[in-house]
């Protein structure tokens, strides 16, 4: 019985830890922090090597920051249910990202943890008030 329980936990752990393959590592990002960006989409690039999203968001002082948030390549994004139409300019979005270490308003879809920035689908994404579900 103990063996079965250990097996179940181990099996679920293995599944959870499988990351998508990432073309670029997350060396420039702080994989210990999750930041939630709330703002308006200004552009959405569906391109190799990485799909990316631009979002205008206000910081604590009311200044507008022009965020650039990268995902993985278009193939990997297709595999997790994204399309070229997932975002469009004007969308109001809330997205979870890991931030650039250098403090620039640049991030990568993902949440803090062992696969930070490598598993896009771990991010919470809300588009125009609706939770994004592929």
């Amino acid at each position, binding site marked *: *019985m103990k063996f*079965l*329980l250990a097996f*179940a*936990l181990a*099996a*679920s*752990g293995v*599944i*959870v*830890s*499988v*990351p*998508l*393959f*990432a*073309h*670029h*590592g*997350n*060396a*420039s*990002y702080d*994989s*210990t922090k999750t930041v939630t960006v709330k703002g308006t989409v200004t552009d959405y690039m569906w*391109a*190799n*090597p*990485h799909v*990316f999203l631009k979002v205008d968001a206000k910081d604590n002082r009311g200044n507008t920051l022009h965020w*650039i948030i*990268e995902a993985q*390549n*278009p*193939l990997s994004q*297709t*595999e*997790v*249910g994204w*399309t070229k139409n997932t975002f469009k300019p004007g969308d109001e979005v809330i997205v979870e990202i890991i931030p*650039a*270490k*250098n403090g*620039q308003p*640049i991030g990568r879809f993902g949440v803090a*943890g*062992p*696969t*930070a920035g*490598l*598993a896009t*689908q*771990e991010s919470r994404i809300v588009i125009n008030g609706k939770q994004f*579900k*592929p």
Partner: protein
Amino acid sequence: MSKRWAVLIVALITGLTFSPILRVQTAAPQAAGGEARKWNNIPPRKSAYAGKKSSPAPRRDLSGIWDAAGLDAGIQVNGAFEHPALLPQKGGGAEGGREAGAGAEGGRLDETGIEHPLPYTPVGLAALKANKPSGPGVRQVPAALSNDPLDQCDPIGFPRMELYELRTIELVQTANRVIFLNGWYGNWRIIWTDGRELPKDPELRWNGYSVGKWLDDYTFIVETVGLNARTWLDHAGRPHSEDLRVEERFHRVDHDNMELTVTIDDPKMYTQPWLGVNKFPLHLLPSDFDIPELLCSPLDMAEYNRQISNAVLPSRPKK
């Protein structure tokens, strides 16, 4: 006892509920109207065919669309990543691989648990250290500091096309050759089966010169030489020289399954041959599977580097 069962069931449900795999699986994209996708097909997960009985393999036949690994294996997770060429930087490594957060990558990508280091020659080790990969791993550097030729859209070349992001390929077999078509970065190779010998002193090519022959009815062996040394062997920056010889062994296990073993033999860089992938599973896909395109556009890459890679560089101390 029943309490234990409850614990087990809760553990299982918890594990599966929070598994990204299952979340993705239940959310598989469908074309509008629920019809099956006809274009840009996504390969099935391993669980969709694992344990499924297959009819016997046809004799001397590799043709078909073959998927490497499936989505849930993590592409290449059992491939070249199993080898320890990403030597952890010990004491004063300038590349900052450790500092770069390798420990945070988790899972099998960091290669720290691997037993047998690759057999580098001193020349090979120096060449490895000169290569600065941007991909996940213990030697990774920020993309803007990487010298990975792929980060400038140089050709991926052979055998890197098999040791990095091997996804879906098509093999076309004709009377005198096998044509290897790779959707990832739009590669194709010709493997001659007409009995010709490999060239002795060829002009070097990104994909080399390949000849193949059947070892038995289900095992096809390909030898490749004449490889341009400007390519890396894989995403980790493992080096090779112009003396590299590669052997591919395609072993058709049954109708639906094939195994690929790639042997790297480069005496200038390695003191003995080693396996880049060992019995790496390839699964046959339906003949109407539409392989998606993924090409490297130098302009798009430059735009990515300008907007993101260069912009996320940590600021360096001013002199």
